[in-house]
């Protein structure tokens, strides 16, 4: 079957030479491509908002407090206790604090307990991070018995943190397979010996790159997916909320029934703290369905890599310690 062809007189552009047509075509194609890309770039949703525009802006304060998750990580340091108590009380009174994540460490058990109990006495809920060093103990069940006896006020216990990435290579390290064997023992022990006593959180996997998600997938394959989702919460440390793609599929399939808490998040720049809460926290909730996001950290030391995550600095100079723009905005304080 042949189709008829209608012959039309050539259009003006058809009468020009082929070289010129090619140049015009190329020009238009490039113009269209650049327009497409620039227009597409306009839909960027910046995860970072304006940097510290001041706590005097009530609209900004409302936006930030709406996104803020009232949970903070506190490094257990006795020298900062007075400043901690003051800062946490300010957050509590402002309605911006419900819970605190603290590390239960073997090295300073008694001193640490004093700080942890002082923080708990403020009326905040505690998430106890059972330090990585405990997980090498041969009798992990006895360790759990001691910790549970020491902290009857704590209901949420996290078993380890970034276990395969944070331990120095000079000391003992732990594979995720070995970790899951320990976690399974703790889980079994708690369900048998202390039914209903505690909710366990997994060690926090890292939230950026492919490492954390694939590690969590391995944890699921090694028994996590068989545990009771009402007894276990998935913990993730995520400092790059826009890079959660690999978690999304996992949390929407194998680990669909499990709750998710982001146990560390933040940015190492005080001027960007507010913007991170505005832009990053909604992404963590959206992508990871994170019930809670713990800000890292109340005080990360006055020097070193963690210091600029801090909500407060120079706690030794209490009551004249430094506070970050985010802290001031949350508490409505001017200093």
């Amino acid at each position, binding site marked *: 079957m042949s189709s008829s062809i209608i012959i039309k007189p050539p259009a003006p552009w058809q009468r020009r030479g082929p070289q010129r047509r090619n140049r015009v075509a190329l020009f238009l194609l490039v113009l269209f491509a650049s327009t497409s890309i620039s227009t597409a770039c306009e839909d960027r949703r910046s995860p970072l908002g304006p940097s510290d525009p001041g706590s005097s802006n009530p609209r900004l304060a409302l936006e930030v407090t709406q996104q803020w998750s009232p949970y903070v990580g506190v490094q257990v340091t006795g020298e900062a206790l007075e400043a901690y108590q003051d800062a946490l009380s300010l957050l509590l009174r402002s309605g911006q604090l419900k819970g605190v994540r603290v590390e239960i460490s073997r090295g300073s058990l008694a001193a640490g307990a004093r700080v942890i109990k002082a923080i708990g006495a403020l009326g905040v809920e505690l998430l106890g991070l059972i330090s990585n060093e405990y997980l090498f103990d041969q009798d992990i069940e006895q360790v759990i018995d001691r910790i549970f006896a020491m902290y009857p006020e704590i209901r949420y216990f996290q078993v380890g943190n970034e276990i395969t990435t944070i331990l120095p290579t000079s000391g003992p390290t732990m594979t995720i397979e070995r970790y899951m064997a320990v976690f399974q023992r703790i889980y079994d022990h708690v369900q048998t010996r202390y039914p209903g006593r505690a909710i366990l959180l997994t060690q926090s996997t890292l939230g950026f790159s492919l490492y954390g998600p694939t590690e969590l997938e391995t944890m699921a394959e090694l028994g996590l997916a068989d545990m009771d989702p009402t007894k276990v919460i998935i913990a993730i440390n995520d400092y790059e909320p*826009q*890079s959660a793609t690999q978690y999304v599929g996992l949390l929407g399939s194998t680990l669909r029934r499990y709750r998710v808490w982001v146990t560390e998040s933040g940015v190492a720049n005080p001027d960007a703290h507010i913007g991170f809460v505005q832009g990053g926290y909604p992404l963590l909730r959206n992508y990871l*369905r994170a019930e809670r996001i713990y800000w890292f950290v109340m005080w990360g030391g006055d020097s070193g890599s963690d210091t600029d995550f801090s909500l407060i600095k120079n706690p030794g100079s209490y009551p004249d310690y430094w506070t970050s723009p985010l802290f001031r905005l949350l508490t409505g304080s001017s200093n």
Partner: protein
Amino acid sequence: MTLRRLAFVSTLVLVLPASLAAQQPRQADSPSQDGSGTYLKLGLAHWQRNIFDSQSLSQWRGNLFGSDFDLTSAALEIETYFDRPHLQLSGWFVGYRKDALRYSDSGHMVHAGLFRSFNLAVFELRTSGGVEWGVPSLNFDTTVFDDRDDGIVRYNHIFPVKNADIPFIGTKRDGAVYPFIELSVVQRPGRFLLEGGMRINIVEFRFDDYEVDAADEITYAFTEKRLLLPYLFVNLGLKLF
């Protein structure tokens, strides 16, 4: 209900062009002999921002380029017109689309499909169908929380089902594959190709409801639905050979 809508839209897309073509003088119901060729196309697409308020075309909002939109995509495609119809088809295409350019980890989709072109008086009307595969943009994931004063936390998590693997990287279910249909209007003046139209991706979504009470008891309500995700696109192409 969604299936009925899907059937209705599919019927429209597939039957309407044929019906229109049948009403035209029979100058060419398939690509003419000089209409064959391979084109390189660059495209721009615009999606509706909140697909969850309007899950079908019947509820699609009219303010197409207003504030309800914030997802723009750029696409690169190669398509070939046959020199004569094969199995009633006029050609094929393969392409790549990047959704939400800011985020490099997601919004990478490749697609392939077949089309049928109907020459009308002043333009071609084209119907297409195909399959898309890749890592969907995270713009389609949303969670709405309701933290109540009595300690109960409720949230609704909506996301496209990850039903495919992206080999060699990441986790096992990190990708999605789904079919799509397209209706577009095409003009091919000289070496150019100008196209505008609508694509409807047919994507399975999960709607997961969680409720956690103060005693950490958790209840779930999980449902799945196939949603029609329409977007508008324009393409500019250049004939390669």
